[in-house]
């Protein structure tokens, strides 16, 4: 039920993001989803890729600081109010969303949203009880 996300520390200077994508591209790794959190000094790039272990190894080899986080991929109906429904369930139960971002690809008629929670297990439980579909890791990497 959990998806492995790679995060990469980036100094805020020209060419660093390009370097990450170049390294991954040359290794034949496909980026499935990404988000970039930035501050004035640094940024954190979060990635879902099709080959997690290989990507992590290559980036570490190239001297990047790499972290691993478990996130949740949630299927959200692609219509007005779709995301609102999911967030409402979480808010009612008092589950805090640390951050979220959308998947590039659709799954059928639905969107896929990546969530990072404080309490991962509780969030998964809660959403599943409400009948919301959560993707397995392998499904996401292949989407």
């Amino acid at each position: 039920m959990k998806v492995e996300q790679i995060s990469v520390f980036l100094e805020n200077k020209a060419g660093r993001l390009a370097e990450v994508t170049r390294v991954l591209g040359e290794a034949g790794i496909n980026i499935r989803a990404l988000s970039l959190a930035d501050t004035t000094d640094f940024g954190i790039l979060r990635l879902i890729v099709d080959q997690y272990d290989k990507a992590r190894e290559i980036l570490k080899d190239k001297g990047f600081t790499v972290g691993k986080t478990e996130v949740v991929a949630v299927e959200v109906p692609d219509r007005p109010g779709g995301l609102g429904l999911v967030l409402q369930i979480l808010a009612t139960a008092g589950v805090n969303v640390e951050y979220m971002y959308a998947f590039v690809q659709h799954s059928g008629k639905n969107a896929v949203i990546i969530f990072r929670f404080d309490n991962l297990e509780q969030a998964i439980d809660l959403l599943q009880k409400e009948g919301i579909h959560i993707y397995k890791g392998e499904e996401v990497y292949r989407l």
Partner: protein
Amino acid sequence: MIRDVEHETMPREDLETLQLRRLQAVVERVYHLVPFYRRRLDELGVKPEHIRTLEDVRLLPFTAKQDLRDNYPFGMFAAPMDQIVRIHASSGTTGKSTPVAYTQRDLETWAELMARTLAAGGAHRGDIVHVAYGYGLFTGGLGVHYGAERLGAAVIPVSGGQTRRQIMLIQDFGPTVLCCTPSFALYLAEVAQEMGVDFAKTKLRVGVFGAEPWTEGMRQEIEKRLRLDALDIYGLSEILGPGVASECLEAKAGLHMFEDHFLPEVINPATLERLAPGETGELVITTLSKEAFPLLRYRTRDLTSLDYAPCICGRTIARISRFKGRSDDMLIIRGVNVFPSQIESVLMETPGVAPHYQLIVDREGQLDTLEVQVEVDEGAFSDEVKQLQALAQGIQRKIKDYFTVSVKVKLVEPRSIPRSEGKAKRVIDKRQQ
């Protein structure tokens, strides 16, 4: 191990008798052989025969680095060239380098004192000593080299640089003693990690590190990463080179100064007043046995304190505390005195930041700014912005609390701070540019 039991464990009274006899001889020597000292002593109305007790060292003039520069290149030599057998020059950490000279007997003394230093770290005949200090004008390489040979150890004179090759040699030749700067030791650890080399599988047992100030936290880091006992040694080319003072393996608490050859004092650098044991100030050294390059009350600019209590290792000679920095390394940030070593000690107690850092001093308008750049390693990295910001702010707050100076902490990528294969460049002062 104590190499020279007689001189390293002498009762203080006997030691002081020896020091006085040697002090009288050195004043006599420079008065007659070095015009600079003749002039200084005459100006002060001091004659060699005025030195009757060790306390009379106070009558002697100080010698500053500038005096050496003023007598460039050979004006301070106290032996004719036909008795000088070696010339080195200061490593030029600050300003222009100054040459120093050695007679054959000076080289003998140097080798002996460096052998004492290595022995204090537990090195002995049968050890293999990997010397990664630079060979050349810098006294580090050759100084340690001849000391190790004197001890009867086998020397690998690898000198600085070619880090990957050094790691290969450490694996293949199996040295047991490593000699280099502490910052280079950490760099070795980093490159070894990249190469997948585990220091636990090498034969290194002890590291003898000097030529730059480092903190207790850095010692722990080095010991953990290189799997050896890390000892601090002290020396400066003007006085001798390495072999002036050394920690012992038993206590690792202060550096034993070889007082039979050097007379230490600690002064307040502003008032030049002598400080009591335990008080921190500038270390001043008078050489007691040097022939070619004797110096009276040389102001080292290194900040430390003196401790005359006997050590658990059995040595009775005075110890100088781990260096607090150099009086000329001191940064004045908006009127507050800051030493790079103070910042380093804060970083070292912060988990997750790598031991490499750099201080950038600049001026915005009329205001000095100090930026502390630290590398984020995997231990501290988080995918959440707020956690990284908390890390930076935590360091900022600690520095503010401890030293009342506001700094900006900038987190940078690993390996983005330039590595040094000799002395680390910790400070970039853009105010002077």
